[in-house]
């Protein structure tokens, strides 16, 4: 049910993002989804890729600080109100979202929401209970 996500620490310096993505590309690793969270001094790049271990080794080899964390990938239909509905469900369950980002696979079909929850087990139970589909890492890569 859980999807492995790579997180990379980066200083707010020009060219850093380009460098990281090039390193991953050189390894032949495909990025499925990404988000950057930033503050005035630093940012955290979060990536869902088709080969976590390969990407991690390549980035560590170039001196980056890399962490692997588990996130949930929730599939919702790509139509008006799709996100609002799942967020209401999360709120009702009293779940605390650390962060989220989303990507749309093919227009008119499904969207995938990536969530990091404080209490992952409770989130899995609650979302499955409300009838949502949680994607595995393989499923995301196969999209």
């Amino acid at each position: 049910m859980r999807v492995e996500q790579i997180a990379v620490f980066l200083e707010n310096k020009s060219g850093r993002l380009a460098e990281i993505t090039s390193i991953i590309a050189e390894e032949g690793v495909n990025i499925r989804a990404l988000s950057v969270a930033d503050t005035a001094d630093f940012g955290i790049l979060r990536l869902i890729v088709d080969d976590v271990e390969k990407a991690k080794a390549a980035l560590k080899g170039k001196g980056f600080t890399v962490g692997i964390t588990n996130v949930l990938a929730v599939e919702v239909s790509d139509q008006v109100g799709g996100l609002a509905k799942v967020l209401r469900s999360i709120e009702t369950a009293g779940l605390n979202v650390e962060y989220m980002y989303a990507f749309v696979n093919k227009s008119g079909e499904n969207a995938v929401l990536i969530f990091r929850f404080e209490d992952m087990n409770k989130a899995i139970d609650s979302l499955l209970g409300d009838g949502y589909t949680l994607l595995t890492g393989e499923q995301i890569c196969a999209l």
Partner: protein
Amino acid sequence: MTTVYWEEEIETLPRVGLESIQLKRLQRLVARVYDKVEPYRKKMDEAGVKPSDIQSLADLSKLPFTYKDDLRDNYPFGLFTVPLDQVVRVHASSGTTGKPTVVGYTEDDIKLWSGVMARAFCCAGANSGDMVHNAYGYGLFTGGLGAHYGAERLGATVIPVSGGNTKRQINIMRDFGSTVLMATPSYALNLADAMCDAGVDPSSLSLKVGIFGAEPWSENMREEVERKLNLKAVDIYGLSEIIGPGVAMECLKSSGGMHVFEDHFLPEIIDPDTGEVLPPGEKGELVFTTLTKEAFPLIRYRTKDISRLMYETCSCGRTLVRMEKITGRTDDMLIIRGVNVFPSQVEHVLMGIDGVEPHYQIVVEREGNLDTMQVQVEVSENVFSDEIRMLENLSKKIKADIKDYLGVTCTVKLVEPKTIQRSEGKAQRVFDNRKL
């Protein structure tokens, strides 16, 4: 383990006997420099003191101080007390803050230096069976050759590897079976990181003790080095003006504090502002008088190092006074909005936080009329999180701990690993960009 001394009789001499030797040597020294070195004679005449006024060790305080500027003013050889044909070696400082300071040694001075360094090795538990990995820089800097000659005098095997070429150093340590590491503490950490990158487990090496000096370092840094390199880390003190490394050395039984080889180097602690001699145990600036050096003796040399002297008996049996680990220098002391800050204090705070890397630097700026201090810290995997909140909490914790410990508000900047320059000698921790 029984303590092994290099010169047991002198190292364990009761204080009365030691002071009697010191006084005789001091009287001889003062008479000699007054007779032979014009700048000393001039200073003493101006202060109204004659060699015959030195009747007790307490009379030392009548003599004028010698400053680094005196060395520069008499550059290069003006303070030497022997003709140059008796000088067998010279060393010099880098001269980054002005003219270099030049020091000279007679053949006997080199023997003396080797002898005090051999004592220092014994303090660290080293002996003739050891393989001494000497990563102090060779050249005009006194660290490399000072340690080298001392290790040879001890009868140990020296690897004169010098600084730099870190990967090769690790191969040599592994292949040659280095047992004693000599380096600056910041380079020791650099070596530890490089071992980690190369997949070399320090516990597979033969290192047992590291003798680290040439820059101030904190107790927390000591723990870090000991853990990362799997050895016992001891502190050595010296400065080229006095002789080089081997002025004072920590023994394995001391709980902090280095034995000053005070039969050769007479220490005082003074108030750096007033010059007044402070009572035993008080903290202040270290001042040294060389008692036995021939080519380049110094009287009451202001080291700018902050320490204190501890006369309590050490369990190793040595009666030689101990000086506390240098916590800072009067010249690397930053004054941030009126508060005295030493880089080693910042280091102490950082090393006390779980997972924080020992690589840091301090950037000081003046914005308007206000000093700002930024502490830059590398983010390692141990402290990294995919959540902004956690990293911001880390910054806040560092900031709060520095405020608690130093009384200064700073900003904390988390930076990517390996972006702070690694040193192969003395680390530069402070970038003071204030234009005053």
